[in-house]
């Protein structure tokens, strides 16, 4: 009914009350706690933190609860909260080489210093529904712990390749990187801003873009040089102190892809790097990011830019799911003023066209 569109205050209030009721579900079932979400839906929490670009597991869990498990909605809630926070400063660069590694694998070497550490992974599980989980009171037996003596240092695979001169060096820069949350992107954006954008881009979008490069749309022959995941320490240098202090540990995942490069007239053949670093245990995102990062280096490396994943403006301006969702869903807002104009013009065109079309048909 037309008047329903002009529902106004009462309709909105009623809709939100209904939403709250639906969110709670059957009151006979115990209410889920944010601590339960934080402990048991950890990968959802990690995704919300990564794309919300705000490392706060408690708020991410709350956002997931509030959004009824709609993760993009949860990401939006966290972003809207984040944007109001005052800024105290920027952290020092994270030292992922000093990571307390929970998982570390390389696909390019069978064994390497520090070893392959599988960690808590879905890899090699058989994807069979585990009906035991449906029963309550299921407590897994503790996983065996490694001998502390095995905790050797984990040098980076890409550093080992670089020592041999096989890895193209990155351009070092002391310039302060821009901030995609404060300054609108302009193109070409440059790699620092690109990586920022990708680090919080939609996981599905990054995955599809990365996948497209694997299927030949901007192929770049990747190998997983290394994925490492674990805790790193965040440090800041307060201006009044002038030296770095630790403010906490965060979980991150880093992926370094090693990609083929044929060399050019000025450079000998060597490997190039695609880089991914993301908040939380979001490995799929880190790998996707690394592939897309490498694809977006096409122009810099003198490759032909032909595929969507190599097009910086295309990738960066469509990666954000909060922007994309908002604009897509705004189609639900009333558009009857525009539509009325369309109606009038289509009617006018039809009125003008019809006699002519009929004459032509008659001839």
């Amino acid at each position, binding site marked *: 009914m*037309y008047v329903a*569109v*002009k*529902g*106004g*205050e009462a*309709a*909105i209030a009623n809709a*939100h009350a209904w939403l709250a009721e639906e969110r709670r579900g059957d009151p006979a079932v115990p209410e889920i706690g944010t601590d339960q979400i934080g402990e048991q839906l950890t990968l959802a929490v990690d995704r919300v933190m990564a794309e919300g670009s705000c490392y706060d597991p408690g708020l991410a869990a709350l956002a997931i609860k*509030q959004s009824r498990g709609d993760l993009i909605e949860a990401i*939006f*809630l966290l*972003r*809207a*909260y*984040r*944007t*109001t926070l*005052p800024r105290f400063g920027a952290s020092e660069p994270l030292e992922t080489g000093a990571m307390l590694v929970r998982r570390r694998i390389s696909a390019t070497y069978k064994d390497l210093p520090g070893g392959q550490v599988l960690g808590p992974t879905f890899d090699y599980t058989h994807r069979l529904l585990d009906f035991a989980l449906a029963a309550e009171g299921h407590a897994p037996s503790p996983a065996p712990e490694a001998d502390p003596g095995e905790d050797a240092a984990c040098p980076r695979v890409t550093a080992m390749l670089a020592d041999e001169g096989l890895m193209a060096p990155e351009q070092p820069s002391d310039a302060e990187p821009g901030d995609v*949350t*404060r*300054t*609108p992107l*302009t*193109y*070409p954006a440059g790699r620092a801003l690109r990586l920022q954008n990708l680090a919080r881009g939609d996981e599905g979008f990054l995955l599809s873009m990365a996948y497209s490069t694997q299927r030949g749309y901007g192929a770049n022959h990747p190998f997983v040089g290394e994925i490492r995941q674990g805790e790193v320490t965040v440090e800041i240098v307060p201006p009044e102190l002038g030296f770095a202090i630790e403010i906490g540990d965060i979980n991150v995942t880093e992926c370094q892809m090693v990609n083929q490069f044929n060399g050019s007239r000025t450079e000998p053949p060597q490997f190039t790097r695609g880089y991914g670093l993301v908040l939380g245990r979001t490995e799929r995102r880190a790998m996707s990011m690394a592939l897309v990062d490498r694809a977006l280096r096409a122009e810099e490396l003198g490759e032909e830019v032909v595929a969507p994943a190599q097009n910086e*403006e295309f990738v960066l*301006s469509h990666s954000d799911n*909060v*922007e994309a*969702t*908002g*604009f*897509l*869903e*705004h189609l639900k*807002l*009333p*558009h*009857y*003023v*525009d539509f*009325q*104009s*369309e*109606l*009038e*013009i289509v009617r*006018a*065109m039809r009125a*003008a*066209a019809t006699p002519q079309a009929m004459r032509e048909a008659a001839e």
Partner: protein
Amino acid sequence: MSAAMQNEGYNFAYLDEGTKRMIRRALLKAVAVPGCQIPFGSREMPLPYGWGTGGIQVTASIVGPEDVLKVIDQGADDTTNAVSIRRFFARVAPGLRTTERTVEASIIQTRHRIPETPLREGQVMVYQVPQPEPLYKLEPRRAETKRLHALADYGLMQVKLYEDIARHGRVGSSYDHPVMVGGRYLMAPSPIPSFDNPKMHMSPALQLFGAGRERRLYAVPPYTDVRSLDFEDHPFVPLRANGTCALCGARDTYLDEMVTDDRGGRLFVCSDTDHCGTKQAEAAA
């Protein structure tokens, strides 16, 4: 609205003063270069992108407790999104008065319409803009459209109008019809019906445009030349339904068409609810 919104501790009109200053600086630039899109550090708002975040940020950064705010969507004050945005400001801007009367408002935030009541000096129109780039359908690369604006290279837009006439016998854009501002910048008037385009020309009010998702602001200062693109022999014609408002009897306003039954029954009513209500009250008096 989110639980966080009910908490104390937000600044007047939600945005912190630093952000407001940043937006006002961009607005000053926009006013100084009429019709030119100015990038700004758009923030995530507690409303979704595409739902008026640009307009809300503009309003939030210019509003004061002494202002009187009117919010319309599709010309009406009681559409859901207008209600939602008005409630937002009522909550985060204590002391701010809201109104549904165009004549009373000092700031009018709008989506898709310009009020029928003529605006006056001192009033500010804030437009919500989904897509600030008038050339995007012809040239999607923003790096390239920026260059076209810099060079005032607008032949492409005229070609599009040519194609419309060649194919349909008339210019095909019935809303968001592009305008030239001050004879220099091609500008998207936001998706207002072409019926409203002439109201932008030489308006005594300051017109501000905010595109949150695309992170652009632009402006038309008072008494600025705003021309709808056309051809000499196919002049721009603002379009409206050929009907009479069923409520106030107006024949010169923009009308919404309402389907009254499933047998083709229709009637028309004013899209501007305030204007329509005023006319009805005058007729009754």
